[in-house]
Each structure stands twice: as C-alpha cells, then as structure tokens.
C-alpha cells in the first residue's frame, strides 16, 4: 500500500516534469497553432545555459534558472523573426520540415560547441536530499518542481485567459485578419508569444536536467512525449496540457510498477485510445 503511495507521488512528480517541459509548447503549438518540433531544442538551450552558468561561472541556482529562460527566449525570438514567422500561414508539413531541420542543426551545434558528453547540474543544498513525512520520503527537488509547476500553471492560465495580451492572442489565432483590422499588431504579438513559449521551454529544460540528464540529443529524445502531452491535452488548452501531463506521468509510473513487462507501452496505448475517442483532446475543441 505504502508502495503505491510512493509510486503515485513519483508519477505526479514525473507528470510535473512533463508539464514544465510541455507548458511552453502548449503556447506555440497549442495556442498559436505552429507545429514547433524545435521546442525541446529551445529547452536544451535553457538547460545548457543553466548548467554552464552554474558549473563554469558559479552563478547561484535561481539566477541561472532565470537566465536560462531569458536566453531561450532570445534564441526563440531570433528564430521566429528570421525563420518561423514566414511559415505561420504555411501548411503544417512545411512547419514540421523547417522546425525538425532546426532540431538537427541544434543537435550538431550543441555537439560542436559544448561537446557530446553528459552535462551535470549542481543544485543548492536546500534542494538536495529528502524530506521525511512519516513513512513517506519526499525528495526536495521534486517538491520544488511541483511548486514550480503549480506556479507556472496558475500564471499561464491567468495570462492567457484574464489579460488583454491573452485575449489578443486568442483573437489573432481565431481570426488573424479580423484582429489585425482592429489595429492590433499581430506580427509583434506572435513574436512576443513565441518568445514567451521559448522562455518557458528554456526554464523547463533547466529545471528538468537533474531528472532527465542533458546531452546534445535532448531535443529529439523527449519530443514524442511532449507532443503526446500537448495533443492529448487538447490543442490550445493549458489546463488540458496539465491534465494530460499528470495523466501520463501517473499512468506511466503506475503501469511500469504493476505490469513492468508491458509498462513502457501503456502510455502510447493510452494516447492512441484517447485520441481515437476524443480527437480534439481531453479539453480541446474541434477546430
């Protein structure tokens, strides 16, 4: 019984890692409708920024995290201005081709610049070790991830659903020409939204290194999981992304615990079943 409680906690923590990584993607892919395969590449940019700042330059952990977000946002903004913006109106296939190309360039660039070795990250003492709550061991870093995930969810939902910025984005996605004719600079709006999604990618990347590791193949390794989370959650819905991340975190860990022989297959089967029954995702609307 206690085992199952620990497993549930493990699953929730894994779900939060998925959500932190996928939160930004639910803006660029989900909300803006841009098939952004390069999301995890931006997460890698954030990851390397944080790891190098902490390891080589001796930055404190939280400052390095913030810088990871800023750097990824800048890189994302440059990519958006030079490449991606040309393809907002293009077909999804073209968007996938371009962004997957960016992924391979990013892998090669990271191998060249940082080297193919594993990157380690040192977390401060206050995030290391376990917190004992009766019979249950809670890892401090996982608790910190859960806290960050909750904060991220609340602020994003607020931003998208309760601010003018969010309303403008939703309007622009729904009807770009109409929004533009209302005097809203859609081009600038998209650039901002994309930079925001990239910043979140960078932050998610930096936060997840300790659990997922970091090397130049990062952008491709977790792409499938992230795409599953965002599409099963429902395109355009942050709550959906969150629900899907939790669902997959828990199903994955519990499945592997109870049925280790087929455990790894369970999340893909669930995704298949869910998308067959609800092609629009858990919370999404059909467009």
């Amino acid at each position: 019984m206690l085992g199952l409680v620990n497993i549930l906690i493990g699953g929730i923590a894994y779900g939060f890692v998925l959500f932190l990584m996928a939160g930004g993607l639910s803006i660029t892919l989900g909300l803006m409708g841009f098939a952004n395969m390069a999301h995890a590449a931006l997460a890698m940019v954030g990851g390397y920024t944080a790891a190098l700042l902490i390891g080589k330059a001796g930055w404190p952990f939280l400052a390095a995290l913030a810088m990871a977000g800023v750097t990824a946002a800048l890189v994302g903004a440059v990519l958006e201005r030079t490449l991606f913006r040309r393809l907002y109106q293009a077909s999804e296939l073209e968007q996938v081709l371009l962004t997957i190309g960016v992924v391979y360039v990013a892998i090669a660039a990271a191998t060249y610049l940082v080297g193919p070795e594993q990157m380690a990250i040192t977390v401060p003492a206050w995030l290391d070790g376990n917190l004992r709550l009766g019979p249950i061991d809670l890892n401090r870093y996982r608790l910190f991830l859960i806290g960050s995930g909750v904060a991220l969810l609340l602020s994003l939902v607020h931003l998208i659903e309760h601010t003018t910025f969010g309303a403008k984005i939703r309007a622009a996605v729904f009807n770009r020409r109409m929004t533009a004719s209302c005097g809203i600079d859609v081009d600038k709006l998209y650039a901002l939204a994309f930079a925001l999604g990239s910043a979140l990618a960078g932050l998610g990347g930096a936060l997840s290194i300790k659990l997922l590791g970091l090397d130049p193949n990062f952008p491709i390794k977790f792409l499938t999981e992230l795409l599953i989370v965002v599409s099963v959650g429902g395109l355009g819905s942050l709550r959906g992304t969150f629900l899907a991340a939790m669902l997959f975190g828990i199903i994955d860990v519990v499945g592997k615990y109870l049925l280790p022989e087929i455990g790894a297959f369970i999340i893909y089967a669930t995704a298949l079943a869910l998308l067959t029954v609800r092609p629009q995702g858990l919370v999404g609307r059909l467009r």
Partner: protein
Amino acid sequence: MIAKIVIAAAAMLAATACANAEDRPLKIGWLMSYTGPGAAAGAASDTAIEVFFKKFGRTIAGRKTEIIKRDTTGPAPDVARRLAQELIVGEKVDFLAGMDFTPNTMAVAPLSTSAKVPLLIVNSATSGILAKHPYAVRFGFTTTEMAQQLAGYASKQGFKSVYTFVQEFEPGLDAEAMFLREYKAAGGTIAGSVRAPLKATDFSAYIQRIKDANPDAVFVFMTASELPPIFLRQFKEAGLDPAKIIGIGDITDEASLPSAGDAALGVVTAFHYTQTHDSAANKEFIDAFKSLAPERPVSFVPVVSYDVLRAIYQVVEAQKGELTPDRTMELLKQIKFESPRGPIAIDPATRDIVQTIWFRKVEKRDGQIVNVEFASTPDVKDPGSAR
C-alpha cells in the same frame, strides 16, 4: 641487350614496389557513433586515436596509417552495415575496427566474414557475437563475464537475496541470465527480477518494486549513457542505500559518474577498466589523453580503442606490411600485452578478450567521485551465454 632490358625491367619493378609501399596506406575503417547516444564515447575514441599516433607514429612497416572514420549514429544496424560495406568495397580497408552497440556489430560481422576483413571490436558486450564470424576479435568485455564475477562476489559477501534490474536488450538479458544461473548455483535466492526498456528515462516504478522486495543487494546492468546517473539518483531518493547496488561498471562509467554525484557513493561494480587504476601504463595513457583533451573523461571506450590500434600495429609489423587475412587472424590470436586497464590477451580458441576483472567501489577522493579498485580476478575468459 637482353641483359639491359632485364635490368631496366627489374629497376622498374623495384620502383613500383617502392611506390606501392608509399601509396599503399594501411587503411583502417573506424566505425563509431559520433552523433546520437554514444557520441561522447565516439569523441573519446577519437582522442585515444590521437594519443596512439603520438606514441606509436603514423607509419607502420612502411605503410602510412589512414583511419577512415564513419559515424554509425547510435544503435542503427542498417547504417552500420551500409557504412561497413562502403569501407570494404569502396575504400578497400585492411581492417574494420571500432564498433560500439551490439546490434551494429551483429550487422557488420557477416560482412567481415564474407570479405575476410578482420574486425576488431571495441565495445559490444553480448556474449555470442564472435562464434560465427572467424575474422572478428573482441577487445572489450562481455556482460556475462562481469555478471558471473558479481554473482561470485554476492555469494562471498553472504548476501541472502538479490534483486536483478537490467535494461531489456541483448547484453542486459545475457547479464541477467548469467547472474541468475551463477547466483542460484551458489545457493543464493533471487528476490525478483525486473527489466526496463532501453528508452525508459524514469525508473521510480522499478525502484519501488525493488524496495517492496527488500533484497540484500541489487544487481544492475544498464549500458553506459546518461541513464545510469538518473537511476542512481532515483534509487537514493527512494530512500535505498546505494551500497546495496552491485553492478556492471557501465553504471559508474567515468563519463557519467560526475552527473550521479553522491548518489553513486558506495556502489560496487565489476569492470575491465578503472580510471584510478594504479599502473605506469595507465598513468602514461591518462597524461597523454588529458594533454589533448583536458575536459574529456577517460573511460573504457578510449582505453580499448587504444588497445585495438596497438594490436593492429603489432600484426602489421609482424607481417612486414604484407597482410593476408588468415595470417592476421593467427597473429591476433597471439596478442598479449599490458594495457592501461591491466594485462590483456586474446583467447585463441574464441578470439575473445582475456583480462583482469576489477571490483571497484565508488568513493570520494579529493572531492572527486571515483571508482576505486579493491579486488580483482585475473585472466577471466568469457563464460559464454547462459541463455
């Protein structure tokens, strides 16, 4: 007149023979992953090649060595096979060498057999890959020999029950089967066994199963990559003692050990190479390696790569540069020298490595997390597959 022609012809022949030696380079096709998982090992093997050239020179028996590197991009047998074919047919290589992942080696070995091109394997740890391929030699290790040693260690330590955890692919299944067989034969009890898919990146579920079974020790095999540190950290986070882990040295590979940090302290492993191995040969290798790539960790792949090149030079030297595949194989079977890992030889019967296997414990030395040797078994041969 006739005498003149003969002399002229002889002179021309001699000239072509000389020219031949000059423009007949010794070609070594080097197959490694330079991208994808395994890229770090590929880069480290490159540094080992440079270390080797610095010490032994770029010419051997009048032939200039040319290493033609090809990127197998990770476990991709189709890619490895295509590249090997191109190296054999297009480049007409004298040797195929390198090889990291078992599936790649299994795809390349049949080509080496049909083209009679000697294949020197750096690191494919599945037991059975040599038997059918008379031109293949392994310089690395097998997971079965390590598992056998660890089973012996576990029963000697008096562990009553052991749980086994391996990644689900050939070398992992090999290791599991051997450990189960040997440990049960020695009277031990298996508390349970679980396998994780190669791609799994979260291990909390498996670790909870281990925790539920409460074994005296846990036998672990995971291929050297970014994953063992994740496993080790989660193991410790679950409140389990890392000192309970006995595993094959991949899990505390020097390349990923810093990333595991304190979570690796106390882990006991069996392996063929330890960075802290105390010998003149190892010190010389590490110094040369660090002078070329100070940041790059020295682990087993560069050491074995270095040994493979040394073996090639020895057999080329012995044949004075005139190679025939069968003579090369005869000579490879007699290889015996002191490697940075310890003394090594090739078993003439199986063409597999014979080497000392070291038992190591992860400790903190001068602030660094390192493997430290504390016992060894000399002249270990691969026991073969237990499956």
